[in-house]
């Protein structure tokens, strides 16, 4: 089930992760890892446990059991703040303060890090320089996402958590976000990406973990996952990750109904 990880520098790792909300098991024994310089895509429907997993990996949520290591360190120690200096995140549901301007928002986030880029550098990086004095409430969806990325990149992180980074964006906006992520990776950064979009996972992720009901049902490169499909099932067109996903999660659902 796990594939592609080797002796390379593993910077995010969880083993046997279990997370419960009362009697509900949100994550049910998950093994994951992200190597330096790689992008791991977490694919799955709502309720699969992706957001919960990411919150645990970001050190925001304590698991019921299992081990989590980021840059070789566990969370919930006095070294947490040091770990956070190397991490950036763009979380889908975050709504940045409406009444602050783009530059003021970035400046605020920059102040949390002991070192990083200047506001001007980051504005240039995400191409929001012309909007530096615009209030956040006036930004388009694509501009808001670029601002979220700006706040994530301002501390020059080594690891980025991206939660549904292009949901609800038009194709041009999606492309601009993808380019930024690819540039970050090209600079040696590592990414943990959650997404609904198969094309996004196929484009950005070096490996994909498909989550279903709190478990990882497959973890491999997009190409290997697609190649692992039975060829008789796809006769009309070239197989894609969509087919992988439907096959893996559909089979799971049918099994439960028959049980």
């Amino acid at each position, binding site marked *: 089930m796990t594939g592609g990880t080797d002796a390379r520098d593993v910077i995010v790792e969880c083993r046997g992760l279990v997370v419960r909300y009362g009697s509900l098991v949100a994550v049910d024994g998950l093994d994951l890892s992200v190597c330096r310089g790689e992008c791991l895509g977490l694919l799955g429907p709502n309720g699969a446990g992706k957001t919960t997993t990411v*919150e645990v990996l*970001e*050190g*925001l*949520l304590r698991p019921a059991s299992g081990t989590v290591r980021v840059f070789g360190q566990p969370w919930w120690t006095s070294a947490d*703040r*040091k770990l*956070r*200096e190397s*991490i950036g*995140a763009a*979380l889908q*549901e*975050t*709504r*940045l*303060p409406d*009444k*602050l301007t783009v530059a*003021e928002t970035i*400046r*605020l*986030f*920059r*102040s*949390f*890090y*002991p*070192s*990083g*880029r*200047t506001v001007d*550098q980051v504005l240039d990086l995400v191409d929001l320089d012309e909007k530096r004095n615009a209030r956040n409430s006036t930004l388009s969806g694509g501009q808001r996402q670029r601002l979220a990325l700006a*706040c994530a990149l301002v*501390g*020059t992180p*080594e690891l980025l*958590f991206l939660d549904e980074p292009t949901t609800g964006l038009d194709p041009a906006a999606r492309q601009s976000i993808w380019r930024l992520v690819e540039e970050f990776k090209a*600079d*040696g*950064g590592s990414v943990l990406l959650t997404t609904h979009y198969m094309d996004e996972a196929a484009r950005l992720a070096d490996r994909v973990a498909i989550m279903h009901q709190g478990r990882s049902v497959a973890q491999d490169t997009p190409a290997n996952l697609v190649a692992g499909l039975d060829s008789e099932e796809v006769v009309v067109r070239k197989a894609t990750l969509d087919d992988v996903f439907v096959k893996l999660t559909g089979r799971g659902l049918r099994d439960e109904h028959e049980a």
Partner: protein
Amino acid sequence: MSTKPSTAIVRHPLVELTRARLLEFLRDPGAFFWVFVFPMLLAVALGIAFRDGPQTMPGCQTICPPGVSPVGSDPSVRYIDFLIPGLIGLNVMGSCMWGMGYNLVDSRRRKLLKRFAVTPMNRTHYLLSHMVARLVFLVLEVAALLLFGMLVFGLEIRGSVPAVSVVALLGTVAFSGPALLVASRTESTEVASGWMNFVQLPMWVLSGSFFDYQRFPEVVHPLVRLLPLTAMNDSLRGLVNHGDPLWAHGSALLVMAAWGIGGFLLALRIFKWQ
């Protein structure tokens, strides 16, 4: 990473957090009205309505027996002199609750707290920045109301201005504690509003902002004096109306400090960041 870290000057996060808080408030016209304009309108309305004292109020016999002024035994203290410190107390309480508490809950609802929690931001700095921003506004709020009272109603500040400042400052600290506590867990602005009204309403009635709480049965006086608004009203009135020295209200100052520090420390422990 090929991009070199910058060496440009970056201000302390507490300074930046406070600055962000101040900017958000100043850009909110509704908040400006409630904090500055509303208390003055209230003072004008009540000052005019009670310009002859509450003795002229219908049905007054039951609440102000003849010869006993509802503001105490000092005849030189008019109702408006009694009222303005009480309005300052109410104003500071309201702006702490709504300005701090509501804003924190809204930030949680917007998943902004969760976003901040992923950064190396010091969480104590975040909560402190709300209190510091409140203190900045406090200076303006209290000064505005006092000046208004002096110019429009001839209010006389018999105590020292530094002493009045200390009481106003402690009052802000005192209300910050309950405000942070109310805002510490919920992400629903409706639930938070309910709790804030629940916390403030008893003090609106009992703490002596509009009339002397001595009129309540004596058995409840010790409890009433433990409320933060009562402590602020009592000490502020003592200074403004009677020229008392600060140390004469030591127990009230202690009550305010306890609410503030105790509330802040407890809130820091139970505060939900996501």
